[in-house]
Structure formats: C-alpha cells, structure tokens
C-alpha cells in the first residue's frame, strides 16, 4: 500500500473487475509485489503462522459448534459425543483444544520478537497497539472457550476468574452477578460465554485486518531496525517471503501434529474430564499454561484488589511500551545492555509461569526452610513470584525508560544491505 501500485491487469475480465473492485490489485500489492526487507529471519515467520492458527481455530470451532450443546446439562456429554461418535470428531476437537496452545506459543514468540527488535517504536505504535488488542481478545476467547466443555476445571476456572471482578470496590459484586446472570456460575454463564466465544474470533479477524493494514502502511521492521532505503534492501513478498513463511508453517505444523496425535491431553488438565460439580473444587486449580505468568502476578500480591490491578497492569505495560522505551536505537542487536535485560525478562516470564503452576507455599528448593517474611517462607513460590513480578514491572517501567538514556549502543549500519554486503565481501 505504500508506494504506487505495479499491478497490471492482464485479461479483459481482470481489467473490468479492477475498474469496479480493485480487490486483485489489493491482494497483489499486499502479498505479491509488496517490498519485504531482505534480511528477515525466522522469527518473522510467526505472523504467517498466526494467521494459520486463527484460520484453523475458526474452521474447527465452527465445526465443533455443529455438534456441541451449550447447556449445563448437555455440554459435557456433547463434547464426549464429539469425541466418540462424530466422524473424525476426536481429530477436530483435539485440533481445536491444542490449536489454542499453539496459537499462544506463536503469539508469545511474535510478541517477544517485536520486543527484541523494537517493532513497537515509531512509526509502528498503532501496529503494536492493535497487536495488544488482538492479544487481549485472544485471552478472553481462550478463557471462555475453556469453560465450554463444562468440566471441573472449566467450571472452577470460570468461578475464579469471574470473581476477580468482585475485587472492584462498590460495583464488584454487581458486576460478578451480572457476568454470571445468577448467583453463581451456571447455565446462563455458560450460554453467554458460548455466544461470546463464537463472536470474539471474528473480532480478532477484524483487528488482524487492521493490524496487517497498519503493517503495510509503515512497512515491516527488520533485524537491523534500519528502514529500507533503496530497492537493494528489499525483495518482493512473493516468492521470497511466501516460501519462507510456508516452510516455517510446515515445521510449525509438525509440532502441532505431534501434540494433536501423540499427546493431545498433555497441555490440558485431567480434572477437566470430570463433569462440572459446583460442590467440589479440584484440589489444585490452575489456569491453562498461557495464563500462568499473569496468574502468578495475581497471587504474588497479598491484597485481592491490588492483585487484580497488578495482573491487569502487567498487560497494560504492553500497551504503554511504545512510550516507555526511550532508546533511539530500534533493534536490541545494537543494544548490548538491553539485550541482557531482555534475556533475563524472558527467563523471568518462564519463572512466573512456573510459579503460577505451583502451590504458593511450596518450597522452591525442596526440604529447605529459611525464615518467614509476611507469613510465607522466603524459600517459597509466592516469594519467587514476588521477585519475578518485581522484575517484570521494573523491566517496563524502569529499565526501558532509563536505559535508553544512559546506555552505550553499538554502531548501527547505514542500510540493510550494507552488513549483508560486508559479509559477502568477507566470504569473497
């Protein structure tokens, strides 16, 4: 969309259509002739992979709805009907359930790639914000989708998450009652979650279109963070990027297929194969793995309201990121200090995920008792999650704003092609 169109209608029909609805021109300019930085690495293939994930979830989801019964009485049995009686139902349901995890694996890599290479910096702020909106919508969709099988984890997960809103002062209780449509999570809750779970993916698809639009206005970032200056810096999207994306998708599908066919329940919880029972909570209630870091932040704060605020704050940091990072250099390839903080940030996110999966008071190092602070032993996951959460916020609120002003950066190349050239020169 940037620059003039090079589309040449060939046949009479194409000319006729182009004058009335230039949709072929749009596709050609966006996905064929679109200039792509020539130095994109494999981390850049996850955008394509994410489109594949969204398409797969939409198709399998629409199919599952053909057999699913959204009622507290029938939901659990209808999911098992899909698994046992519907032709290929087991395949479609396992694709959908594991597809959600694949979607999040891909989106986390996509986000960390953006973080590392500074893809949120001017002029790509809106692009980044739209991505954050997609991520939020994904979380809402995934949460509501997990409720639909109406197993024990579905039910009590819904209880815990909806009760988060009860932390809000004054209006909290009214909001939870409103969310439930009753005095507890029950049939009305299931039905509205089902409705929204069907709606939100189409909203995601809509925002994805905006995201791609914004991308094509400002152009793709690249590992050097240097804007393309001449034709030498870019290659046409097709075939160069399409074939690379295609290869990466295929490799990603191997991982996907491995989960679907060989360990389809590894990322789920055994308790969700027990039908929902409001009278008994599973002994160890944890969200799906992709929510664990936020769950750990929630539990790290002793106060209910503050915990909820911290959790939402952790997501809000992502939205504010374009204005928090003060560095003039886009890519962390040329920011050696920032790179170390970034690496540590990735590790901290993994640690938070681990803390989210553990009981807060369990010791991190087995059989070691240190001293108790604020009612918990220092050698406990709740304290580990507190330190990790502190780093999480410090990374966004202190490291990125301050480091940009004080760090010493490496020289940035003049153009994308020049480091490639020097590499060639060395080889020659």
């Amino acid at each position: 969309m940037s620059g003039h169109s090079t589309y040449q209608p060939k046949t009479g029909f194409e000319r006729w259509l182009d004058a009335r609805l230039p949709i072929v021109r749009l596709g050609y300019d966006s996905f064929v002739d679109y200039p792509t930085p020539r130095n994109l690495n494999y981390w850049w293939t996850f955008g394509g992979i994410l489109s594949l994930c969204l398409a797969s979830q939409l198709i399998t989801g629409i199919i599952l709805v053909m057999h699913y019964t959204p009622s507290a009485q029938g939901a659990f049995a209808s999911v098992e009907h899909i698994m046992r009686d519907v032709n290929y139902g087991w395949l479609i349901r396992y694709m959908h359930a594991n597809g959600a995890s694949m979607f999040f694996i891909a989106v986390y890599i996509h986000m960390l790639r953006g973080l590392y290479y500074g893809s949120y910096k001017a002029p790509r702020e809106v692009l980044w914000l739209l991505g954050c909106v997609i991520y939020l919508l994904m979380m809402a969709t995934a949460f509501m989708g997990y409720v639909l099988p109406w197993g024990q984890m579905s039910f009590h997960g819904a209880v815990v998450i909806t009760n988060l809103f009860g932390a809000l002062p004054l209006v909290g209780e009214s909001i939870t009652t409103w969310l439930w449509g009753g005095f507890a999570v029950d049939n009305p809750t299931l039905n509205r979650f089902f409705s929204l779970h069907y709606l939100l993916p189409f909203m995601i698809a809509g925002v994805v279109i905006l995201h791609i639009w914004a991308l094509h206005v400002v152009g793709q970032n690249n590992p050097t963070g240097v804007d393309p200056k001449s034709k030498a810096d870019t290659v046409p999207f097709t075939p160069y990027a399409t074939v690379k994306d295609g290869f990466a998708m295929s490799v990603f599908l191997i991982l996907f297929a491995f989960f679907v066919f060989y360990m389809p329940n590894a990322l789920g919880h055994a308790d969700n194969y027990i039908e929902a029972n409001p009278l008994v909570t599973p002994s160890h209630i944890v969200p799906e793995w992709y929510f664990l870091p936020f769950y750990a932040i929630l539990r790290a704060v002793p106060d209910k309201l503050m915990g909820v605020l911290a959790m939402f704050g952790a997501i809000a940091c992502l939205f504010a990121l374009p204005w928090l990072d003060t560095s003039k250099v886009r890519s962390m390839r040329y920011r050696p200090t920032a790179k170390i903080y970034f690496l540590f940030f990735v590790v901290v996110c993994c640690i938070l995920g681990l803390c989210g999966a553990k009981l807060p008071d369990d010791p991190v190092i087995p059989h070691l008792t240190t001293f108790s602070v604020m009612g918990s032993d220092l050698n406990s996951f709740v304290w580990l999650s507190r330190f990790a959460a502190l780093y999480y916020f410090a990374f966004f609120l202190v490291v990125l704003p301050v480091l940009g002003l004080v760090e010493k950066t490496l020289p940035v190349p003049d153009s994308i092609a020049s480091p490639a050239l020097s590499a060639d020169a060395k080889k020659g």
Partner: protein
Amino acid sequence: MLRKLSVIAAVAGLLTVGASAPAFANGGALEPKDVHWSFEGPFGTFDQAQLQRGYKVYREVCSACHSMKLVAFRNLGDKGAPFYNPKYPNSNENPVVKAIAKDYQVADIDGETGDAIKRPATPADRFPSPFANEAAARAANGGALPPDMSLLAKAREGGPAHIYSIVVGYQAPPKGLKVGPGQNYNPYMAGDLSSYWSGDKEHVPPGGFIAMPQPLKAGQVTFDDGTKSTLEQEAKDVSAFLMWAAEPKLEERKQTGFAVLIYLILLSGLLYASYKTVWRNESH
C-alpha cells in the same frame, strides 16, 4: 546473536520446568507405579485379549458400583475395541456385542401404555448405571460417590497407571494414622494426611484416604483365556480396559498421526528445497 540468546533462554526455560518435577513436599501421593502398556508410544495399540479380560473384571466387579454411562454396547465391537471382529464392520451386528447387551436391562417407556418398563438392551444403548441417581449411589456407598468410569483413565493424573497403583496399592495404615470409619488408607491416593497423623510431623505418610475398600483380590475373576488371575494381572487388565473406554479412538489417532507426520516432514523438506532455490541468488 539472538540465536545464542534464544538457546540460553530455552535452556533456562527447560531448567525451570525440570526443577519443578521433583519438587514435591512430604505428604502427597506416591508417584504411580511404572507399568508397561501395549498402547504406549507412537505405534501403541490395545491388546485385545487384555481388553477382553479387563472388560470381564469391570463387568464382574467394578460395575456393581461404578457406572460407565458414556460407553455404548456397540462401542465394544468398534475398531480397536475389546470385541472387534473384522467380520462385522458394523458393530451393531457383532453377535458378541449383541449377547452382552441382551444381558443388561435398560429403562424405557412402553410405547402403548406409557409405563416405565425395563427391556433388554440393544447394541445402540449405553451401559446402564448401577444406581438411579447420585443420591442413591451415595446412600449405598456410605456417602461416597463411586466415580463414573467412562473417562476415569483420563480424569486422573497418571491415567491407567494411577488406577493400577490404587487397586494394587492398598496396605495397612501406618501406626499413628487415624483412619475414620468407611475410610481406607492408600499411599497412591491424592490427599494430605497431616491432620490425621500423630507421629513425627516431618514424616507424614504419603497418600490419602479412599472410601472404596480394596476392590480386587487374586483369583476373584476367572479369565476365559486361561491367564492366571493374580491381583496385578486383574488390576492391569481393568486399567487397560478403562483406558480404552476413555480414549476409544487411541489407535486410530496414533495411526493417523504417523501418516500425518511423515507427510509433514516430506512437505517441509520440499518447501525447504523450494525456499533454498528461491533465495539462492539473494544475499541475506
């Protein structure tokens, strides 16, 4: 450079995950026993003879208290099932399945009088539950609800190995453990016994209480194929049967998966070759 960083990050991630595994405190259940199953691994299949023995254990012992309401009689004759016979691709016509179904009485409504009646089951019916409802089940079992067995092998951490371990794992409670009436000690049961333990607080016995008394003993079921019915054999066979009941499409899934993976690997190879060809003249 990012490559190096990502390797480090991946290693760190693995370490944190690895560190989590052995981190379980005292108390808690024992890890399930390590059992070898024929259905393990990418090419695993159910052992039909074992499933038939397991079905007999379920029929003669478990089904007295445990329902299996998601499984239909016809399922017993499906591909990969205990009584699959290639001569009867339509499991509704499988004579063994028909005979099994006929032995059960299921509730129905008389089409003419509207009375509630019992009639012999057909292959299309699901296994009837031993109790009319949850309250009846609890009343007959000292307040405890015997869980439905259709998904039991997927609804427990450890799956069939957990079921096997529970069944063979009953032992006399250690001295100092207060066992309430209607409770039994089992070291493989999830739970926390510290409040029932009067011994050393540092060495709370593993496991928990289970309402079900030891359900199986050696020789309880006579296997038709002459297999010696030790407790271990019975427990293993019924666990395998329950795995089939919970995941009847396991064989189909693994076999499809193998073909899909072969295809994807070949496709990736082709796409990689295509990618290399497209980019061969471009420095990048």
